[in-house]
């Protein structure tokens, strides 16, 4: 990742949180879910940075963190837990 982003020590907490968001959106313990969640978060961040504000992209991903499990719990289809 050093090749695509400049590294500072303060980057760590941000990426820990981002990885958490992706893992929870994709389903805990599911490897395919983690990859698909990464795609989802990446696209939503890029599109939100273009359409809304670049500083609002974290808000979109955290909103997905809240909305995704809430919608999955409320809807008829429960997420498949592969763990």
């Amino acid at each position, binding site marked *: *990742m*050093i*090749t*695509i*982003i*400049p*590294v*500072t*020590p*303060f*980057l*760590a*907490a*941000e*990426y*820990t*949180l*981002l*990885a*958490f968001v*992706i*893992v929870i959106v*994709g389903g*805990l*313990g*599911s*490897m395919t*879910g*983690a*990859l*698909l*969640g*990464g*795609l*989802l*978060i*990446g*696209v*939503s*961040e*890029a*599109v939100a*940075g*273009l*359409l809304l504000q670049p500083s609002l992209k974290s808000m979109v991903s955290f909103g997905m963190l809240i909305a995704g499990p809430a919608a999955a719990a409320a809807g008829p289809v429960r997420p498949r837990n592969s*763990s």
Partner: protein
Amino acid sequence: MTSTSPLLAQAITKGLLTGMVYGLMALGLSVIFGVMRVVNFAHGELMVVGMYLAWVAFEYLQVSPLLSLPVIAVLFFGAGLRPAARADLSPSSAGPSISSSCCCWAIAIGAGQCLPRHRRPRSRAASRWRRSSTPTSSGPLVFDAVRLHAAHGCCRDRRPALAVLHPHAHRQVDPRRRRQPHGRAGRRPRRAAALRLSPSASVRPAWARPVR
């Protein structure tokens, strides 16, 4: 809208490519959670330590980050083997444990403080290497070469590599079997040997057993 549609397509492309990098990042966390049942709070910190190592290797030794990547991975594996075998980061079937997560958090804080921030925190980038890898363009879209490499690695079938690295990655871990990472009785941690006295107690780590 016609003026923003190439921008939107570019944003979606970049988002897909960045998302594959994010997916690889989250895959690490997911594998750690699936195998060890530990929520690794130190994931980003260890990633940043790895990035700093790659930067040091590039800046001072002129090693390409793609070449130093497997070396750093093996280095981290060796560095984490002994503490993971000794500490409470061992796998337990009792679900995600609080004390292992707190241990990870402590590692995170320690690693974050040990990183070079005594001077003005400068952002470090392997920019010369990045300049040498030219982006690919198709029509109005521009693809970053590094992200394309990562996407290629992301889309490949990872199961053979994971099976070589960890044969139980897809299965429920048997804690009694995972407890001996070295395979030799002499190098086994003492607490693991004590835990094996009773088969029911060996499932849980020492701190999680009921007090008698």
